[in-house]
């Protein structure tokens, strides 16, 4: 049995005011595995992603990425872990408006200290892979929503992270565009060998995953595909 990329044990999280979102949550994600997490609004799906990314702190329990226990890392080390091992895709794209598409995609490599020309060259390849070849010098204002999300996917994968966290990546898109983006996302994830956690309300999106998990107060429950 290979070592998991993500291991969550007995996780409990409540919101300010005391309401418990979930307790006793366990999750084991193998390398290359792609899971979708579904659940009602307000159940804590995005909060769980923030906890996995080390952007929020649990009340109880442990999370480890690539064997590194997040609770044992300070903010700087969690940040460095995120920089090297995690990729993100958001519902609201979050593509920086004053950077070119190439710079947006190359940002994780630049943060890792790669040379600018190499990072931009790799970014062009990634943009081509998501169907945006030759657009590296364009600015985001020239893109549609679907194109922007493809840029975000390229950015999430360019530094070959072990784990990709995606929070409603198709939530802002029309069904047709959403399908195309989802297809790109799944293809890229599979191609890169990364593991992925996809939070979504969309059954169509969830169907692209290996497993579907339902988040409730008592943690994650696997639903038959």
């Amino acid at each position: 049995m290979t070592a998991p990329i993500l291991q969550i044990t007995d996780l409990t999280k409540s919101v300010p005011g005391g309401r418990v979102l979930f307790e006793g949550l366990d999750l084991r994600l193998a390398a290359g595995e792609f899971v979708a997490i579904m659940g009602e609004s307000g159940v804590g799906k995005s909060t769980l992603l923030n906890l996995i990314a080390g952007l929020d702190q649990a009340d109880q329990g442990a999370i480890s990425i690539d064997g590194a226990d997040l609770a044992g890392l300070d903010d700087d080390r969690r940040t460095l872990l995120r920089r090297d091992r995690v990729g993100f895709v958001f519902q609201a794209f979050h593509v920086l408006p004053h950077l070119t598409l190439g710079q947006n995609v190359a940002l994780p490599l630049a943060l890792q200290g790669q040379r600018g020309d190499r990072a931009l060259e790799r970014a062009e390849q990634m943009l081509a892979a998501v169907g945006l070849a030759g657009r590296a010098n364009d600015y985001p204002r020239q893109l549609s929503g679907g194109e922007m999300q493809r840029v975000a996917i390229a950015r999430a994968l360019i530094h070959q992270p072990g784990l990709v966290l995606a929070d409603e990546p198709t939530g802002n898109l029309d069904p047709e565009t959403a399908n195309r983006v989802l297809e790109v996302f799944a293809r890229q994830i599979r191609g890169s060998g990364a593991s992925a956690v996809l939070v979504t309300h969309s059954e169509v999106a969830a169907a692209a995953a290996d497993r579907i998990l339902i988040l409730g107060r008592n943690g994650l429950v696997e639903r038959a595909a």
Partner: protein
Amino acid sequence: MSNAPPEQRGLAARWMILGEWRAHPMRVLTAAAAIAIGVALGLAVHLVNASALSEFSKAVSAVNGDAELQVRSTTSLGFDEGLYPKLARTSGVAAVSPVVELEAGTDRPGETVTVLGLDVLRAVVVTPSLIGRPLAAEGGDARGPTMEAAFDESAVFLSPAALVGRAVGQPIELIAGGRRATFRIAGVLPGVGEERRLAVLDIAAAQWRLGTLGRLQRLDLKLSPGVDAARVAGVLQQTLPSDAQLVSPESEERRSDSLSRAYRVNLDMLALMALLTGGFLVYSAQSLSVARRRPQFALLRVLGVRRRALLAQVMAEGIGVGVAGGGVGIALGFGLADGALRLLGGDLGGGYFAGAKPQLVLTPGPALVFLGLGLVTAVVGSLAPAREAARAQPAVALKNAGDSVDPRVTPAIWPAALLLGAGAAAAFAPAVAGVPLLGYASMALLLAGGVAAMPRLARVLLSGLKGRSFGHVAPDLAIKRLWGAPSQAAVALCGVVASTSLMVAMAVMVSSFRGSVEDWLAQVLPADLYVRIESVGTGGGFDPEEQARLASTPGVAGIAFMRTTMLRMSADAPPLALIARPEGGLDAGAPPMIGRTEPAPPGAIAVYVSEPAAWLYGWKVGQRIDLPIGGTPPGAFFVTGIWRDYARQHGAVTLESHDYTALTGDRWRSEASVTLEAGADRQDVAEALEANVPERLAGRVSVAEPATLRDMALRLFDRSFAVTYGLEAIAIVVGLAGVAATISAQTLARTKEFGMLRHLGVTKGQIVAMLATEGALLGAVGGLAGIGLGLAMSQVLIHVVNPQSFHWTMETKPPWGLLFSVGVALVVSAAGTALVAGRRAVSADAVRAVREDW
């Protein structure tokens, strides 16, 4: 984990910074321009002052020659020449050169020259730079022996500045000591630069023909080689009478520096106010930029940028603004200083360097200091926004959930209270080396405290409006916005309050000063006419016979003669004015008094001291003091009262005319105030007085009415404050530009919000009206707070900075009309700016605005 070299780790930050600057160049340029203007003004004022001071020092050393030590008389009347042989015998003194030094008028109206009477045989050893070179009448070198011309009692050698428009061989008339004597220009003084009008003649001729027989104004000393100068100075000090002082080149330098130091420091500080306002502008621009980019920074944190890297990025942006602004400011400052020196000479209005035409002194030190100040200002302005950017929680900020401050939380007041308390405490601290540094620190702390109090104060001032409905969309939305986004309102208010309070503080101080001077002029000019002799030189004026003739002029009911001379209290301080007032007791026509008076005990000589003199020398009413006049014993003088004087910053001492004559033997008088007989016509009496003036003084006596003198004094006041007004105006423009930039940037950043409102059915007009209301409310709250803070800061200027700088007090006289206009102008300009920016913001397509990613 990544361990890239630093130059590669900075790549992302470079992209982010350059991308931001490319996207919003005007914001960066505005902030950099504010820093540039502040640095340029500060450097230019400093360079002009430093150049003028250097010129002034050169002029002082030109008159002093190369003497290692000097003995100088405490008054222009000189000391007994018997001191000369006594000092010449002192061990360690190699040579002594006796000097008569007088200020003299010439045959050119209004011109004065410094006359030095030298013993050439002595001067050639002690001060060779003061020795003249004879020239032939046509301008070439004279063939005759030098010494011959030097001993000629009618020969005078002129410095190049005095020789302009004159020719060798021509006569020149010198007027001093009540005498008028004609000399022949025999040559030039090659060792004296262009900076001073100097005339050197034989000492015997000077004493005999200019009325200073038996008196010397100074002795120039050359010490024996290898001797301990401090020991010799100590020995000489024991030998000196009370009307002579030992002066070194160093003490002369300190004296010329202290003469104008307070004025120069004040101008420097005022120029730095523009830089301070620029700092607030950087703060506003950076705060706004950080607020707008909060989700972007959150994304970077998610992507793996550490907190301190974000802090460094925002600080680097501030440093970039500081370096660019500072660099441009340095170039601009040199240009401004050069232009000011060409156009205005070295005098910036204070009158300390009037007539000086100095060259720009270019030294890298001040440029580096001002560059550093610009950089520090920009960095400090960026610090708080950078910390805010680094501290934000990425998960929350990524949602872009609005203002970073929860509107339900009451803003903390303790940082503001702490700063205001420290500012108030600093106001009570004494001057540092004669300069009110802590007074300025107090103002800066009060300003910072006032700005820090704005979030809380805005809550208090707006609380009356909260929850109130006006039945109109525009005002209702405007109030909800100001209440719901407190940190954004605070950033806009910060610029308004900073620029308004500085402007108000300066305006109240100047208005109070001018008002107090007007009151004072009304008190010190009670007579019907004033007679004054112009450019008459040392020791001149009306002799007793001429005084009697003037008193008998038809229409004159009474005439009071006065004499003003200089009195050196110490070697390194500017001299006091010694004023002999009319007979009949000091109460007759006494100057405006401050506080109580106390009659002098029998045997003591009563003096009134001016407020600056009391401050500088620590004199109090009822105290016995020493004055170096006429060999008086210690404690011979008694302070009867302290009087208000705005004319002489370095102090004045007034004593009765007969005491002055008894102490100095000087019966000459140079000013007079005239009371007319009932029904006498001023014009007729003025003409009669002019007709009664002795032939010797023809064309040099002015007879003026008090209104003319008052107008002239106020014109001088306004001229001396012209640069102050100019600097303040620039600071205001920078501040208002900052307010406009802040409001405009805030408005343009809300395009998405306006798009949403348009979707909800709010019309473009209503949105623009909402923005104008927001602007007007911000202007009103900021103006109110700024005027209040400015009034508090003006009290520091009036009661701390001015007394510590110039040693006089004044009453607060706020220019209420101006303050009201400032308030209205602020409301109008803030509302106008918001309106113009709003029109632009709502012109964008509403659908696209809502879809914008950030």
